[in-house]
C-alpha cells in the first residue's frame, strides 16, 4: 500500500501543468511577452522562406523557460494530498476504512440513537437510549475479552464456555451455488428454431452439443449423437440467468447477478443484449492472471429435455469465449489484461450453466479486443 502511495507521488508531476493557478499563468504570459519583445528588438526582417523555421525555433526557445516557470510556481501542496499518508497507519492499526462512511456522527445516529429508541419503551426515552447502547457495547467488549482469553488457553468455567460457543460460534451455512434460468424468450421448441433465431448453422450446434455431452455427461445419460434424434429434442430458449455470487470476504452474503442474453432478439425494443460473463474454463494454472477463468459473451441459454433418459433436463449456455492476449499477463503499463476474439477459434461453445461465475466488466478497446476491468469491484480486484 505504501508502494502505491510512493508510486503516486513519484508520478504526479506529469500533471504539473494542470495545477497552474491564474497568478502563475499571468506570470508566464508576462515572461513570454518579454522574451518576444527582446527578440523583436534584436532581429531584423527575415526572408519569407526562412520565417517558418525561425518561428519553430522561437517556439522551442520559449517552451523551455515556460516549463521551468510552471514547474517552479505550481505545487501539489494541499491538505488532501497529505491526508492520504495517514491512511496506511490507520489501516495497519484498525483494519480497512469503511467504504461508505464518511462521518462517524452520521452512522452513530442510526446505531446509537435510532435503534436505542426502538428498544426503549418510549417513556422517558433519553436515559434508556444512553443506557442501551452503553450496555450493548460493554457486553460486546466483555465477550471479545473472554474469547481472547479462551484462545489463549485460560481456564474458564464451563458455563461461560457454553455461552461463548453459542454466541460467537460461526456455523457456516451450506454453500448455495444455484443458478436459475428465468424468462422465456422467443418462440423456440426445437433446435431448428433456435438455429434460425441465433443465426448459427445447425452443423455447429450439433457439433457443440455432442462435444458438450461427451465431455460433461455420464456415458449412459449423454445426449443422443445422431442428428435426427437431436433435432427432435424439445428445447426452451431463456433470457436470463440468476447467479449467486459470494460477496467479498463474506461467507453467507450473496450478490445476485443477472446476466441476460436475448440472442439476436431485441431487448426492450432496442438492440439485442448479450452480457459478458466469467466462465470457468480450466484449472487455476492456465491463462495467467485470469486463473483459469475466461470472459465470454453469453449468446444463448437453453434447457434441453431428454425424453429417453427419464426426462432429464440439461441446462446449458452458449457462449463466445475470448482468449487472453499475451497469455493473460498483466500489462506493466496499466495493469489490466487484454482479451480478444480470435478469428480461428470457434465462435460458439456450449458450457454447463454451473461454470458461469458471474458478470464481467469489459471495456471495448478496438475491434474484437477488450480490456478486462479488474478495478470494478473488490472481488474482481482480488481475483485477477
Amino acid at each position, binding site marked *: 500500500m505504501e508502494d502505491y502511495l510512493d508510486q503516486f507521488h513519484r508520478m504526479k508531476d506529469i500533471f504539473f501543468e494542470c495545477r497552474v493557478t491564474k497568478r502563475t499563468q499571468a506570470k508566464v504570459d508576462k515572461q513570454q511577452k518579454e522574451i518576444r519583445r527582446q527578440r523583436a528588438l534584436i532581429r531584423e526582417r527575415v526572408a519569407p522562406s526562412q520565417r517558418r523555421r525561425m518561428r519553430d525555433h522561437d517556439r522551442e526557445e520559449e517552451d523551455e523557460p515556460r516549463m521551468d516557470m510552471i514547474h517552479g510556481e505550481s505545487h501539489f501542496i494541499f491538505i488532501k494530498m497529505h491526508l492520504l499518508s495517514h491512511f496506511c497507519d490507520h489501516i495497519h492499526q484498525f483494519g480497512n476504512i469503511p467504504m461508505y462512511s464518511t462521518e462517524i456522527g452520521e452512522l452513530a445516529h442510526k446505531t446509537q440513537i435510532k435503534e436505542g429508541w426502538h428498544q426503549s419503551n418510549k417513556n422517558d426515552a433519553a436515559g434508556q437510549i444512553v443506557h442501551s447502547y452503553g450496555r450493548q457495547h460493554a457486553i460486546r467488549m466483555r465477550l471479545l475479552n473472554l474469547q481472547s482469553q479462551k484462545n489463549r488457553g485460560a481456564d474458564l468455567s464451563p458455563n461461560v464456555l457454553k455461552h461463548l460457543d453459542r454466541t460467537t460460534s460461526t456455523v457456516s451455512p451450506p454453500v448455495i451455488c444455484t443458478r436459475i434460468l428465468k424468462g422465456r424468450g422467443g418462440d423456440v421448441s426445437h433446435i431448428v428454431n433456435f438455429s434460425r433465431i441465433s443465426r448459427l448453422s445447425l452443423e455447429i450446434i450439433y457439433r457443440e452439443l455432442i462435444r458438450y455431452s461427451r465431455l460433461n455427461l455420464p456415458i449412459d445419460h449423454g445426449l443422443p449423437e445422431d442428428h435426427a434424434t437431436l433435432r427432435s429434442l424439445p428445447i426452451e430458449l431463456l433470457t436470463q440467468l440468476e447467479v449467486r455470487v459470494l460477496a467479498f470476504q463474506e461467507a453467507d452474503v450473496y450478490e445476485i447477478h443477472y446476466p441476460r442474453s436475448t440472442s439476436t432478439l431485441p431487448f426492450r425494443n432496442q438492440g439485442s443484449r448479450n*452480457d459478458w460473463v466469467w466462465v470457468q474454463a480450466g484449472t487455476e494454472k492456465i491463462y495467467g492472471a485470469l486463473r483459469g477463468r475466461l470472459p465470454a459473451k453469453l449468446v444463448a441459454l437453453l434447457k434441453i429435455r431428454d425424453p429417453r433418459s427419464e426426462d432429464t433436463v440439461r441446462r446449458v449456455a452458449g457462449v463466445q469465449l475470448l482468449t487472453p492476449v499475451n497469455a493473460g499477463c498483466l500489462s506493466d503499463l496499466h495493469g489490466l489484461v487484454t482479451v480478444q476474439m480470435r478469428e480461428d477459434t470457434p465462435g460458439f461453445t456450449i458450457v454447463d450453466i454451473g461454470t458461469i461465475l458471474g458478470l464481467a466488466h469489459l471495456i*471495448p478497446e478496438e475491434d474484437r479486443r477488450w*480490456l478486462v*476491468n479488474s478495478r470494478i469491484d473488490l472481488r474482481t480486484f482480488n481475483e485477477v
Partner: protein
Amino acid sequence: MNLGIGQNIFHGLHRVSASDLYKPDILHTIYLGLLKHMMDWIEAFLKKHGRLQAFDEVWKALPTYPGSLVPKNAYREVTQWQGKEMRKLGRCILGVLAVALRQPAGAHAIPFKRALRYVRALIDFNMMAQY
C-alpha cells in the same frame, strides 16, 4: 452485571477535543477530493494531447455492471458529481484511460506512460484502503 463505560483516552488530554480529531474519510478525501482533482488534471492532460474525443467515446460505450453506472452522457457533459458517482467513476477510469491513451505516437509515449502509472497507483491505493 457490573459493567460500565470507561473514559476514552482522549478525554483527559489537554487542549484536545476528542470529537475534532482527524478520522480517515474515504468520501471527502478520495472520492470528492483526489479523484475530483485527478479528473480535472486528466481533462487538461487529454486536451493538451488531443485525446479528449477518444476518452468521451470510450466513456459512452461502457457496458453495464451491477451496482455501477451506465453513463448516458460523455464525461464532459456531466456537471455535477456525487460521491457515489465518483466512486463508480473510480472503478472504470483506469480502463477507460488506458483505452483512450492507446498507441501513443513517438513523443507522447513517455507522458502517457507516466499518466497511466499515476492513475493506476491512485486507484489501487483506493482499492487497498477498502480491502
